[in-house]
């Protein structure tokens, strides 16, 4: 089957397709306007402050960056693990991973205090900084995946696509480890300071990236009225369930290792029991709605063959991902630094208290713009280049 796969551009001219593109373009433009406004006015109009220095834009940016590396999964399944049944999806997988990364990086850049100093960020490197490493890892990822995509599409060099795919796979594992390590390396904060964050981010990337991939695959196939046999969705459904279980495992392990040290009990109490919005986000949106319910939808025999249940599971996993990153990034900063162990601390700089953070509209618009521009890029590429298989009929396994 894979050898006979025909790739074509999306040709639909349906109002739904153009309407979707228009909506995404408006969201992207409005978000860029919001970022410009924050840049001119200063970050005091955002919800961020000197206590919570990374806010909602970082939740969006890190979700997109993590999902980007995960979206490459399907290409890796074909190239690295030799699962030929995923080969027809490999091109789209590579396109989506680049689009998501560009969207995520745009949010990260536009949320800087000095986004106009991009040139400084790419000409001055401190190699002790995991951030500086990430700048290289992210830009390298785009170049490598572009090359990989080209090798997959150019018949003369197709045999090179396998080593390129392996290289891209190794690179994306390091990349996501780097993203997790942004937090894992923060030794002074009890909320982070764990090497577990690196592998946890890798599994999160598998799951979030696949969920976005499935939704966009179904959308583009439906808009262009292409044939998609249920057997392909069955495979993706199984993978998604497996990745969700993987995240749950790491979340449990993370909290158990934290609970083992008595110095972390206050932090664990904050997240798991009395942290208000963070506790609710953790239990309700991350665990129940973002993990357990999707697992039920994915594995319950009754819905095994329903694409609606798969779509719902993907949406739930994505909202669970946002909740998880909100708890990790913002909950982790809201919990006060323990500068004076054994003392109760008070100051005018909010030492010793749970810090407040309410996201502003500007931050929400900027975050949505990143997501919208990623989807816009992906849908536009599908229109101008033959990235999607003409059809995905059923095959014998």
């Amino acid at each position, binding site marked *: 089957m894979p050898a006979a796969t025909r790739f074509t551009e999306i040709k639909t001219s349906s109002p739904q397709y153009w309407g979707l593109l228009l909506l995404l373009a408006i969201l992207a433009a409005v978000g860029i306007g919001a970022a410009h406004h924050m*840049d001119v*006015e*200063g*970050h*005091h109009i955002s919800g*961020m*402050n*000197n*206590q919570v*220095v*990374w806010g909602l834009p970082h939740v969006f940016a890190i979700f997109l960056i993590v999902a980007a590396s995960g979206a490459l999964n399907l290409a890796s399944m074909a190239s690295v693990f030799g699962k030929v049944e995923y080969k027809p999806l490999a091109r789209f997988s590579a396109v989506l991973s680049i689009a998501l990364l560009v969207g995520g990086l745009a949010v990260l850049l536009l949320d*800087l*205090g*000095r*986004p106009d*100093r*991009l040139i*400084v*960020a790419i000409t*001055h*490197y*401190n*190699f*002790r*900084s*995991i*951030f*500086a490493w*990430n*700048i290289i890892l992210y830009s390298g990822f785009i170049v490598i995946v572009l090359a990989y995509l080209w090798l997959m599409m150019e018949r003369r060099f197709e045999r090179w696509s396998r080593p390129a795919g392996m290289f891209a796979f*190794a690179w994306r594992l390091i990349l996501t480890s780097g993203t997790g390590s*942004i937090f894992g*390396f*923060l*030794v*002074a*904060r009890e909320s982070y300071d764990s090497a577990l964050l690196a592998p946890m981010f890798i599994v999160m990337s598998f799951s979030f990236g696949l969920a976005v991939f499935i939704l966009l695959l179904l959308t583009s196939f439906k808009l262009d009225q292409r044939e998609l046999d249920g057997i392909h969705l069955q495979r993706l459904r199984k993978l998604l369930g497996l990745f969700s279980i993987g995240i749950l495992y790491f979340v449990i392990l993370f909290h158990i290792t934290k609970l083992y040290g008595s110095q972390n009990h206050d932090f664990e109490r904050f997240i798991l029991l009395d942290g208000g919005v963070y506790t609710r986000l953790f239990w309700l949106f991350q665990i129940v709605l973002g993990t357990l319910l999707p697992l039920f939808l994915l594995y319950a025999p009754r819905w095994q063959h329903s694409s609606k249940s798969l779509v719902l599971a993907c949406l739930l996993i994505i909202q669970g991902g946002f909740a998880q990153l909100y708890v990790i990034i913002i909950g982790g*900063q809201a919990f006060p*630094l323990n*500068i*004076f162990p*054994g*003392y*109760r*601390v*008070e*100051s*005018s*700089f*909010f*030492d010793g208290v749970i*810090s*407040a953070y309410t996201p502003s509209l500007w931050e929400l618009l900027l975050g949505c713009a990143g997501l919208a521009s990623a989807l816009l890029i992906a849908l536009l590429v599908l229109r101008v280049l033959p990235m999607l298989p003409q059809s995905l009929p059923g095959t014998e396994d």
Partner: protein
Amino acid sequence: MANELDNIELRPARRRFMQSSAALAMTLIAPGVLLYKTGQAQSENEPGSDNKDLPATPRWGLLIDTNALSEADVDACVAACQQEHGWHSDAGSQTAAQWIRKIHLTDKQSGQQTVLPMMCQHCADPPCVDVCPTGASFKRADGIVLVNKHTCIGCRYCMMACPYKARSFIHEVLQDQLAVAPRGKGTVESCTLCVHRIDRDGANAVPACAEAVNRDGRKAILFGDLNDPDSEISQRAKSHGATRLRADLGVDPGVRYRGL
């Protein structure tokens, strides 16, 4: 004969095996070498092994005697720093900068109360310098940790990494800045240890916070060279003891406290 044939057949396979083994070894070793080199890397202004002939580099630090400081003294420290560097902080503002702040401590068991000034601790191994992607956060050879306002991109990672919450991000447009303390919206800042005074007066310098509380021969905040065993600060630390905040982190702060 049969053996020879076997060998001939095996050669390409063996060659392939050797090639892939070499490639694998390179792939595994190269990142390790890079990591090692990175781990060994020193910032350019760190005292290296090649300047043995130069006089010993000072390491400027503070010794803060909390027993000698009243609440009014700490308020005076904060006010002096504000005046010296031109920053202001409205009460209750979450976004205003605070280069130095007054901290009230209550021992959870004994109930003993302490009040102290808290500022950048000018660590020997500053996490803010490690994490800064552009190198804007840097440590001078004399141990003072600063932010280069020209290369700070405002990513705020240093604020995430600082164990002492010593840094502030400038959230608003600023006016009427002082020449000794250039500041700019969208960048990060913190206590400079009054570097402009140190560059002018050397070992005789007195930072503004110390000047505000050291009266009548009392030295509640003592400034000096921690690298010089004969300096007053080193002698006092030796005889009376000095606590490093979060010593467990091993960042070796240059600001030390007595009475904790």
